[in-house]
C-alpha cells in the first residue's frame, strides 16, 4: 500500500522521488482505462468535489473525466458566480461545508496558498489544481509523465525550458522536480524574464549543472526536450517590444532541421504564437498528447489517494 492514501497534494515539492515514480507507473497502467479500452470501477461510490474559483477547461475536465473513468463521480462549480462564495463566504467555510459532500477536494483558486489553507480546514484530501501564481502539482506530474513516457528516463536528458521563466509557474515547479530527477536544464528566455535567482540556486545546490541562454537557436541542437511557454503581453510596457521578443522565441519548422531526431516539443497549452501550427504535423510535437496525459495522471493520483488500488 502506498503512502498516498488520504494525502494532500499541494505542491510538487511535497512529493519524493519515490512518490513521483509511483504516480508515473500507476498512470501508465491507467492509459487503457483512460482511452476507454478497459473498464474500471475502482472508485465506485467515491465523490470528488471540484471547486474551481477560476475557470480552467483542461484541468477541470480532465479531473472529471478521470473520476468518471474510475467509476466515481465529480461535483462542483466553475467560477464563483451564483455560489455562496459570491455572498462573501470564506474559503475556509466553503471547504468545511464541501467536506461533508465528498471524499476528496480539488481546488483551483486565484490566491497563492489557497490550497494549503483549504487543507488546514478539512481532513479530506485536498489536491491543488492551481493557486494563483503558486503551485499546480498535477500539471507538473503530467509534464513529468510525458517526458518519462517519451524518453524512458529523466537522467541525462537535456531539457530546454523556453519563454517566460520569471513568472511562469509551470516552469518553476518543473524545474524543482527535474532538479531532483537528474535532468540537465537549459533556461532560454529574454533577459528580463530569466528564471528567478533562488530557483537557480536550488538547482545548483542539488549539484546539477545548467545553462542559461537567450536564443532558442543556440540550444535547439542539444535539446532532447523543448518545453515552450507563453510570453504574456502584459509583462511588457511596450507592445512593439513584446512582439519582437515573443517572435524571437517562436518555434518554426525550419528551426527543427538541426534538432535531434527524437526531440520532443512540449507546451502546457493554451498556446498563442509560441509554436507554429506547421510544427503540429512533425513527430516532435507531443503537446496534445501531453494534454491527454492529464487524464491518466489524475486517475493515478485519485486512485492512490482514494485508495481504490489500481
Amino acid at each position, binding site marked *: 500500500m502506498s503512502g498516498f492514501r488520504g494525502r494532500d497534494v499541494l*505542491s510538487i515539492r511535497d512529493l519524493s522521488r519515490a512518490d513521483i515514480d509511483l504516480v508515473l507507473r500507476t498512470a501508465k497502467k491507467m492509459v487503457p482505462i483512460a482511452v476507454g479500452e478497459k473498464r474500471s470501477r475502482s472508485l465506485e461510490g467515491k465523490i470528488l468535489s471540484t471547486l474551481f474559483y477560476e475557470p480552467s477547461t483542461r484541468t477541470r475536465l480532465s479531473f472529471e473525466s478521470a473520476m468518471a473513468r474510475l467509476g466515481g463521480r465529480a461535483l462542483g462549480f466553475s467560477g464563483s458566480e451564483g455560489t455562496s462564495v459570491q455572498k462573501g463566504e*470564506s*474559503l*475556509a467555510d466553503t471547504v468545511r461545508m464541501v467536506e461533508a459532500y465528498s471524499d476528496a477536494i480539488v481546488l483551483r*483558486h*486565484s*490566491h*497563492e*496558498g*489557497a490550497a*494549503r*489553507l483549504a487543507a*488546514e480546514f478539512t481532513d479530506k484530501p485536498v489536491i491543488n489544481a492551481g*493557486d*494563483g*501564481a*503558486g*503551485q499546480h502539482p498535477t500539471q507538473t506530474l503530467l509534464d513529468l509523465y510525458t517526458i518519462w513516457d517519451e524518453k524512458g528516463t529523466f537522467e541525462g536528458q537535456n531539457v530546454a525550458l523556453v519563454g517566460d521563466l520569471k513568472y511562469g509557474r509551470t516552469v518553476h515547479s518543473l524545474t524543482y522536480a527535474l532538479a531532483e530527477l537528474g535532468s540537465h536544464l537549459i533556461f532560454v528566455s529574454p533577459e528580463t524574464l530569466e528564471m528567478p535567482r*533562488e530557483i537557480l540556486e536550488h538547482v545548483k545546490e542539488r549539484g546539477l549543472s545548467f545553462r542559461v541562454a537567450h536564443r532558442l537557436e543556440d540550444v535547439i541542437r542539444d535539446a532532447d526536450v523543448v518545453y515552450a511557454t507563453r510570453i504574456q503581453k502584459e509583462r511588457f510596457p511596450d507592445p512593439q517590444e513584446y512582439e519582437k521578443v515573443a517572435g524571437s522565441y517562436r518555434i518554426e519548422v525550419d528551426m527543427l532541421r538541426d534538432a535531434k531526431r527524437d526531440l520532443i516539443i512540449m507546451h502546457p497549452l493554451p498556446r498563442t504564437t509560441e509554436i507554429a501550427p506547421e510544427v503540429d504535423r512533425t513527430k516532435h510535437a507531443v503537446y496534445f498528447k501531453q494534454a491527454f496525459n492529464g487524464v491518466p495522471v489524475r486517475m493515478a493520483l485519485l486512485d492512490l489517494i482514494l485508495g481504490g488500488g489500481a
Partner: protein
Amino acid sequence: MRELRVTPIKNGTVIDHIPAGLALKVLKILGIGDAVASTVTVAMHVPSQAMGWKDIVKVEDRELGSREIDKIALIAPSATVNVIRNYNVAEKRRVTLPDRAVGILRCANPNCISNVKEPIESEFLVRSKSPLRVVCKYCDRELEDIVAHIL
C-alpha cells in the same frame, strides 16, 4: 554621587541589549505611539561592554506577552527582557527566535491567501536565523523587508 541618565523604574519591563539604532523599531513593535498611559524611557547609543553600543527601552507598568517578545526576537535576537517588580528584577528573559512566526508578520504578497479575509493567522517559517530569513507558510514567498511587515 554619580548621576544616572536613566532612573530605575518601580514596575514594568526593561528591554536591554538592543542592537544600537533599533530602539525605535522596538517601540513600534510594542505599539508605543501617541496614546501611552505610562512612562517610556528610551536610551540610544549607550556604551556596552558586550556589544560596543546598544539601545535600551524601559516601559513602566507593563509586562510583555510572549508574542511581543517573539516580535522583538525578529529584529533584536540579542535583546534581554527584564521584568521589574518593586524596583527588583523579578524575571530575566532572553528573547529566542521561534521556528515559526505566527500572527506577528504580514505577508508582502498582496495575492497571498493570508492577506484575504480568512479565519487564519499569518505564519512564517524561519529558514535561517542569521541572517534572518523567513518564508510565508501559505504562498511560499520569502519576506524581504521583515521589519516593515511586523503586525
